[in-house]
């Protein structure tokens, strides 16, 4: 069903237990090149845990993770990012006393391996600064680029979450509820930005708003109690009886 596109990210029977609780049950996913996949499921289904496993914040008890065919199951978080697997956080995980310009410049410098150059003035890292500003401009953050992050409006901080991830030049981008806590009118603006990301970037996003999911996802993975219940096109998911029962039935009458 993935078409002819090569698979960039693959999980094989990923499993994780917290004590007696199985939070991830044998999850096998394939993300093809340039995909726009949504990960949905009721609260407590283990969506964020799955992202934490894929990006390395958590170690799986069993199973494998392959990025571009390479086994990264045991690679540290930063190493995965350097290979092109980046995430954003559901709860803002920013640098409160840095400006967006500084934050994104930092991410670019880390990517380019120049962050350790303590003998060179920051302002001489022109390429990094210019690239950071370009990213901020694309994400409509240019006008607040030199204000402390902590003073930015919440919606702007959500955009900065994505800007920081983009600065790592990801091949695969995992967005953990990018619009969490953002009012509905602003959240569609946020997804406009997301939909304008380069087509060759593979994106998996968690989102609760079904209108947004059906509008932006080309495929939907439904996670229930740690396991994949259904993986299908939006139309397939919409008409799936099991999905209606466990998930859409209560939250949505569509």
């Amino acid at each position, binding site marked *: 069903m993935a078409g002819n596109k090569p698979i960039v990210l693959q999980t094989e029977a990923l499993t994780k237990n917290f004590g007696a609780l199985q939070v991830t049950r044998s999850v096998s996913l394939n993300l093809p090149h340039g995909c726009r996949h949504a990960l949905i499921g009721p609260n407590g289904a283990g969506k964020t845990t799955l992202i934490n496993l894929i*990006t*390395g914040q958590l170690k799986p008890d069993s199973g494998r993770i392959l990025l571009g065919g390479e086994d990264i199951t045991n690679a*540290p*978080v*930063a*190493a995965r*990012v*350097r290979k092109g697997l*980046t*995430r954003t*956080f559901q709860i803002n*995980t*920013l*640098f*409160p*006393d*840095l400006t967006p*310009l*500084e*934050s994104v*410049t*930092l*991410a670019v*410098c*880390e*990517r380019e391996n*120049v*962050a*350790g*150059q*303590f*003998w*060179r*003035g*920051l*302002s001489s*890292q*022109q390429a*990094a*600064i*210019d690239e*950071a*500003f*370009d990213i901020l401009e694309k994400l409509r953050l*240019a*006008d*607040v*680029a*030199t*204000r*402390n992050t902590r003073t930015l409006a919440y919606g702007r901080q959500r955009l900065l979450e994505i800007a*920081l*991830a983009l*600065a*790592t030049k990801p091949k695969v981008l995992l967005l953990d509820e990018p619009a969490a806590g953002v009012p509905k009118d602003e959240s569609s603006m946020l997804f406009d930005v997301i939909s304008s990301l380069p087509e060759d970037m593979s994106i998996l996003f968690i989102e609760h708003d079904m209108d947004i999911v059906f509008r932006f996802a080309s495929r939907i993975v439904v996670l229930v109690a740690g396991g994949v219940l259904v993986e299908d096109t939006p139309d397939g998911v919409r008409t799936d009886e099991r999905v209606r029962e466990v998930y859409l039935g209560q939250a949505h009458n569509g």
Partner: protein
Amino acid sequence: MTNSTLTQATARDWLRRQSRWSLPEIIFWPLLLLPFVLFPTYLPLANQIAIAALFALSVDLILGYAGIITLGHAMFFGLGAYCAALLGKNGWGEPLTGLLIAGAFAGFIGFVASFIIVRVQHLALLMITLGLGFLTLELANSLGWLTGGADGLRVPRTWPIFNYFRFDLWGYTAYGYSLAVLFVCFLLSRRLVNSSFGLALRGVRENSTRMPAIGSAYKSHQQIIYTISAAMAGLAGALLAQTTSTVALEVLSFNRSADVVVMLILGGTGRLYGAIIGAIIFLVARDQLAGINPQYWYFWIGLLLMVVVLFMPKGILGFISRLAGKRD
């Protein structure tokens, strides 16, 4: 500040402005020469202040910028002091090479210690630094044949600097020497904190969860700055040994580790100048208060510390810069 027309060029300019020398900075340094003319009888105190300021500067690099808390940094101060003293005692009294050797030695030990330091955080980190400090102190205490134990070491007078500036009884050369070393280390620190590396350190301090998520193996950053900081603390210790010609176990004491943190908190962390201002306030207060009552002067330091922490959470410099309406 309106940023509505911010462009790539103005963004670059803004970053450049962050590291530009400000007027107060340019006025500050010549003021440190005033003791030579205004208080020539206080030059030994001024020398102590310059040495404490350098020590506090070394702690600011890790505590203020990289968010590595410590209660054991006297370890590196003391290692530098003993290293310089032993060089002098064994016939090598040349100050500059002695200084560099002592700094390199403390830096090397700091590098070794950094492997433990980056593994722990918060309270565990405090305990590890405290523990390392105690270990070093007792080691020096037990190696009496080398360190003189509780009696300390008397060091022959250090040779003239550049074979020209003799160390005099009044402390002209001593203060000039310590001030020059402080200034050079300050310039290096200033360059460092205004580099991409300095930005990365602030990133670690601001949010160590996010750093790996932007691809930063930030522990190597922490190891580098810890090593540099240890070396700088070693330089400060070496200055003390060279300019006072004595070293006692006190250089390794918990008191010294705690005092330097107090100085930094008083002055304000993460702004370099806080280390210098804090050292001035602490040591001048100690000198004056001990003159009034030699037993209870810590009472007033305690009171001052509480007032600053409660009412000026970013230290005295942070308070002043907020009054001046600067970004802090």
